[in-house]
């Protein structure tokens, strides 16, 4: 019956009921188990999304918005309750507009980085890239999840690069955030120079902040405008090897203090090897020669004097590295900057880089300040030993964010999913690590199901307000129930 109602909105061909499809949505690569959805509905436009949300409100049927393709790994797209409908936004694939002058792209939720990057490049732009996302990752999904981007100097605010968005709230109301609201269609706004650029408001509220980090619980975004960067006309890329993490963090602080550089992040050898190689045996061989830690920094030439821009930044970087006793290299044993650079401009080549070493992986990520990251590395390493998990098998990715005021700290536990002992050790380590991270001051800003209870343990007042806001924007609680604190 319900399926008939949905078919009336999107057409019968866009309501999926096959067992295999539904089973696919009932779990992901996380350790969590979820409920099997009753069907998958695939809207093609915002009007259909709105109609589905209104239908769900009347039918009291939970909706789980999904914009990225599989494989999913964080549990946020697995229904938390029985009888849910997956609202799969991957058909909404329009790159609606690219404005090269104002460096803005307007896209629908089904657009992936592989689709957006070439379109932007034609206009002399590039996207704010996370680190080698999986091929099917939705750009809007990534942005709404506050996935860290690799260009911290350009990352002014945690919501970047999100500008404006159109959203369908749980009430069924359609709303445009920031500058995009108003009496006109977006096309009419373009005619008068309004390009959905300014994210503030409207008025006293920043509505887009209720969508970012919400895991689809507050509304379904049907398009968003995103900040873009100039496409570099020449890039100078460097690797800085180090036996220890502290000096690399010092260097990152120095660069970010003056907003120098384009891409900037730190990886340990395990993660770097996984990024660079496809085959598990090659990863192992490379790992044997890589230094324990590597900072990657690029200096982008664009604008009026691209050569001079890259040159002065590079010269200052080399001086700063020297001041902290580091020696940047174009190539280090086991890796070169030239080899890594192309991997940072688009999605990960298949298979996804975190799946290559052992097939399975579990991420733990949280926020800290960069200076505290070595403590967390020690904590995780000690916990790994206690949980019979080899510390050297843990991938570490450190991404300064918000112009260096904080750091996204990500530990990846690689394991063979088909080996029960490894899986168990990974699961135990993950649980213990989350507890210890919280106790040590790590902040789970993005509370995915694996650690949401831990994250909210010290956020009772925040949760109370979030629940009240949820009541305003989704009073029937139909949007992705069971996530966050709902």
């Amino acid at each position, binding site marked *: 019956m319900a399926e008939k109602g949905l078919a009336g909105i999107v057409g019968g061909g866009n309501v999926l009921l096959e067992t295999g499809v539904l089973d696919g949505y009932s779990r992901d690569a996380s350790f969590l188990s979820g409920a099997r959805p009753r069907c998958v509905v695939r809207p093609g436009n915002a009007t259909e999304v709105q109609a589905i949300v209104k239908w769900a409100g009347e039918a009291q049927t939970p909706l789980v918005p999904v914009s990225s393709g599989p494989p999913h790994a964080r549990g946020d797209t697995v229904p938390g309750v029985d009888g849910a409908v997956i609202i799969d936004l991957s058909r909404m694939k329009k790159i609606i507009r690219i404005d090269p002058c104002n460096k803005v792209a307007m896209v629908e939720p089904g657009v992936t980085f592989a689709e957006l990057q070439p379109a932007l490049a034609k206009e002399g732009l590039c996207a704010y890239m996370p680190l080698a996302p999986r091929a099917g990752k939705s750009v809007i999904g990534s942005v709404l999840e*506050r996935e860290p981007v690799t260009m911290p100097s350009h990352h*002014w605010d*945690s919501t970047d690069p999100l500008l404006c968005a159109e959203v369908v709230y749980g009430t069924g109301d359609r*709303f445009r955030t920031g*500058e995009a*609201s*108003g*009496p006109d269609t977006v096309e009419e706004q373009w005619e*008068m*120079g*309004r*390009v959905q*650029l*300014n*994210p*503030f*408001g*409207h*008025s*006293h*509220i*920043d509505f887009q*902040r*209720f*969508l*970012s*980090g919400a895991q689809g*619980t507050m509304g379904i975004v049907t398009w968003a405008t995103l900040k873009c960067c100039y496409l570099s006309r020449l890039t100078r890329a460097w690797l800085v090897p180090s036996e220890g993490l502290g000096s690399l963090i010092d260097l990152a602080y120095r660069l970010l*203090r003056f907003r120098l550089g384009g891409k900037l992040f730190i990886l340990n050898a395990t993660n770097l090897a996984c990024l660079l190689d496809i085959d598990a045996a090659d990863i192992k061989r490379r790992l044997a020669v890589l230094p324990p830690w590597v900072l990657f920094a690029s200096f982008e030439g664009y*604008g*009026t*004097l691209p050569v*001079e821009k890259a*040159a*002065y930044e590079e010269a*200052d970087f080399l001086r700063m590295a020297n001041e902290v006793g580091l020696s940047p290299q174009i190539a280090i044993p086991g890796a070169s900057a030239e080899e890594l650079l192309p991997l940072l401009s688009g999605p990960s080549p298949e298979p996804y880089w975190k799946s290559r070493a052992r097939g399975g992986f579990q991420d733990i990520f949280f*926020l*800290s*300040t960069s*200076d505290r990251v070595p403590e967390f590395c020690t904590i995780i390493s000690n916990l790994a030993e206690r949980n019979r998990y080899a510390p050297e098998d843990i991938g570490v990715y450190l991404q300064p964010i918000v*112009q*260096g*005021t*904080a750091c996204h700290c990500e530990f990846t536990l690689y394991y063979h999913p088909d080996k029960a002992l490894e899986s168990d050790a990974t699961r135990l380590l993950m649980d213990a690590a989350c507890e210890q991270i919280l106790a040590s*001051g790590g*902040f*789970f*800003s*993005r*509370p995915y199901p694996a650690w949401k209870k831990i*994250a909210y343990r*010290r*956020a009772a*007042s*925040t949760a109370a*307000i979030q629940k009240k*806001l949820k009541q*305003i*924007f989704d009073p029937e609680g139909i949007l992705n129930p069971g996530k*966050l604190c709902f």
Partner: protein
Amino acid sequence: MKLSNEEYKALEATVGPEYISQEPVIMDTYNQVWGNKFFFDEKHSVRPAAVLLPARPKEISEAVRVCNRYRILFKAFSSGFEYLSLSLMNSKSILFDLRRMNRIVEIDEKNMRAVVEPYVSVYRLQMEAAKKGLFTGRIGVGYSAGVIAAECCHHGCQHTMVFTSGYGRNVLGVEWVLPTGEILNVGTGEAGSDLFSADGPGFSLRGVLRGRTGANGGHGVITKASVKLYPWYGPKQWDHKKQPGEALSKGQLESVPDGYKVFVPTFQNLDDTLSASEDLCRAEILCAFGIAIVGTNPYSEGNDEDWAMMQKTAETRARDIDPAGGGVSIANSVVCVIGYQSPGEMEYKEKCLRKIAEQWGGTFYDNLNEPRALARAFADIMWSSGVNLRATGDFLPSSSSPDGSPEMLKRLALQEAEIKRRYEQAGAFLTLGSGARMVSWRPEEHLSIGAQGISTAQYDPYDPASLQAARKFINEIFDPRGQFNRYGVPSRGGCLQIEPVTHVHQNWGPRYDNYDMWLRKIKKMLDPNTVADWTAYIPPEYPDSPKDGDYVLPSYGKAEQL
């Protein structure tokens, strides 16, 4: 309306008898700010029933609970620049004067943030941050603006936003006494960590904290905030000294501090000026930027001297700039500040700036680029002197004041200027220059999120004709049936939005995706007893005010119930 003895005693118990007053002479010092005449027809806005000087969030929390018990309105006050921070719906209201909460709690040099209490001014934080090589953004209301007021509570734009952003995007943590009296720490603060992120877990309550503007007192009291800092390229200390020919009360820099350079190119026409401005801002080389500002003027001692100087500026500045009489307008000059930490950075930025200026035909006139003029421009643009009030005693800030692309802001500004010109020609407003077309916007984050349109009209609030003209002018712009209905809601929660007077939400909300409906629900959620003053936020329900069609007419004047 006085508080009852019981009500007063209950409030007194929260802060102690030393730190509460209801003496009329004291109360009147809290309701005299600029703008009152425009909105309320009087020098004074509504007089509060009492003022409390709390020292701790707990005291505020307890007092707010008393307000809930007795249905007393409250509002917090720190630097108290304008009417938004002092307007009250009725006189059964109290103000929290936060001057005892004046600590810079922490400056974290590495992680580039400062944690401050409400009475810390932007300039005071700047002086302390500079010792660690850091800088805080400011808004254009003078040195004494509060950091928390600017970042968390009110609207305000600034020339440094090209580099330091603003409008709440620098907030990394807040401690917040909600209208119920509960104390909320957002983000890492509640988790017990350092205040380095205000987002989460999950979606961010910064969305409630503020949008383009803050709640202007409408949703509680911010008692502590962590704000992002930016690099300061200059010395750890500097001196403001009286300079020859300048007022004693206003010290000035002798020169642009080391680590910075200032350039003032002038272009031939408005289009070239704006095109060059866009290129300069997008080049990511600027620490501060101003279009058509006259910050290179010396400061005057008093308002009358300021008036005289402005008149002189209007008449002679163009001739001074270009003695050859090339028809140059001050409207086509821009002030650019670059900072550098290395000779290579300085060379690159200066070369880039000069090339862009050259591409658009810019000229660096000597009298705008001599060392003292540049030092004045630096101080004005980096720290803000807040001189807009001086010439006439009042001004209309950013009358329509949207944010967006430079192209949109240009169209809007020119349309608005056409209207303003009528009033200028009638002698109601101060006129700058010979009527050259002027457009000014303030870039945000190297223009990557657009810019804020800025226009001001300086009028004399005690000249009835000028005051009447100011209101007529605003009525033309704020009427959503007029030519500005597609550019965004005027004021957007700041500037001239005193809701019981200008009815901005009521008139514009339905046209702008009903944002006001969501805002009202949020207000009700936070403040179920409506005790946080809403005059510059949103009313619990719209009053039944006189209308022209569906347009709610402005309600200038003051009454107990406005």
